[in-house]
């Protein structure tokens, strides 16, 4: 049996083919780097994604601070995580790299600011 994946790791977007037999993953073809092989194997077992969004800022020079997850989370948890982030408000100043929410929903991933928002 085989399954095909489009790698999302980089813009090369490699077409990767994974051979498998039951639960055993066999050869992986088409990836131009080792990250791609790892990605395809993960997709077979448990797809993970990193998400980026924004968080409301009070007393900031702009109304939002952009954020990212610092490690990927299970794909099926994306909307739960989004719902949690939506209700969060932070107060300026926020510094890029600052952890906004630690270990979100116990998923071992932090929500981190990707820009600095100064106080008004």
């Amino acid at each position, binding site marked *: 049996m085989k399954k095909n994946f489009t*790698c999302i790791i980089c*813009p090369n977007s490699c077409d990767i083919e994974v051979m498998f037999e039951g639960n055993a993953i066999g050869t992986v073809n088409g990836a131009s780097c080792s990250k791609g092989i790892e990605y395809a194997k993960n997709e077979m077992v448990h797809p993970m994604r990193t998400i980026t969004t924004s968080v409301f800022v009070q007393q900031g020079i702009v109304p939002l601070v952009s954020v990212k997850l610092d490690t990927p989370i299970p794909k099926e948890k994306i909307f739960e995580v989004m719902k949690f982030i939506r209700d969060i408000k932070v107060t300026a100043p926020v510094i890029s790299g600052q952890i906004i929410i630690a270990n979100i929903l116990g998923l071992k991933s932090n929500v981190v600011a990707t820009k600095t928002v100064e106080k008004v």
Partner: protein
Amino acid sequence: MNTMDKDVIIIGGGPAGLAAAVELKKRGIHNIVILEREKYLGGILRQCIHDGFGLKRFKETLTGPEYAQRFIDDIQKFNILYITEATVIEITPDKIVTAVSRNGLLQYRAKAIVLTMGCRERTRGAIGIPGSRPAGIYTAGVAQSFINLHNMMIGKEAVILGSGDIGMIMARRLTLEGVKVKAVFEVMPYPSGLPRNIEQCLNDYNIPLYVSHTVTNIKGRGRLESVTVAQVDEQMNAIAGTEKEYKCDTMILSVGLIPENELSLTCGVNLDKHTKGALVDEHYQTNVPGIFAAGNVLQVHDLVDFVSMEAEHMADSVASYLYQEGFPPSHISIIPDDSVGYVLPQYISGEIDVVCSFRVKKPAKKCAIYVLQDGKVIITKKIKNALPAKMIQIHLPAANLNSTNEIKVKAVEL
């Protein structure tokens, strides 16, 4: 009005302008200024809060704001002068730059000018969709700005016309924020964005992509109520009987980007009909001596990494120009075959090795790139998965040239 003298005026503080400024400073050019129209530096990266930037330039994945900040940190470290909320309104061929700013009119006399104004989005008017003219129709970048910078949601049920990368990224962004994205329609028989974005922005969220489909009617009074979508034939004409109506209050357009060259035209810069950017030589110099261009104002890029690297190369040339190192004349023109969208640079000297950038017109699993001169192939390169969405670069060593005659770049599907 007091006219200030500068070595280099950089027009636009987006990724290209920032990279150029830092590189100029590193090359010992200190009397420079960046003029930026917006309130903050960073250009379009400020609203691109998704990640995937920087893999080529920094060998790690960054979000847009983080990528921009790397350069802004350097601007601050090197104490490079920049003026925000300053809109350049005129550049003259003798390099007088006039800008409107918070402090009134500013005027500079420059030894060299760097054009880094980026690009604009094509709008509904540019593609001529019939129908009424309700609210709720946004270009992808405008929608992105509303949502990511201004905290304003733009609708509840959306369709997306055009499969450009920003359109797909907005499909995901809207979905994450609770908007129902019904479908993406693409008039061409293949998607115009990168496969990774089809995967992570559409497939991950079960958003269907219909190629060879376009919007043929828009309905709604006040607010958008529905769009009619039809399949198109090979000539891209709507096929009667295939129409389907989609109820929606929002339509996002991701139908292409056009280099922003109104200012370039005011100073006599000649544009390429293919790229809609300046015609340049291997030093990124336009036909007006001392006026250079790089980034999306020159050619629309798919990756910001290439924008930064192009601007850095250009800045090196600007430094050489100011140090009067002298450039050999560039009389050899490089032109695209019908199979290739454009080639950049358009002129070379033939005396130094250059890197040519171009795009194929049609996707091909395997294709060969031929560089021809005097009817002979001087370079061959095989490319896997060639896509119009991916810029291709090819090394063109001066030693391979046989004459000073025109060079042609051709793509052949294998």
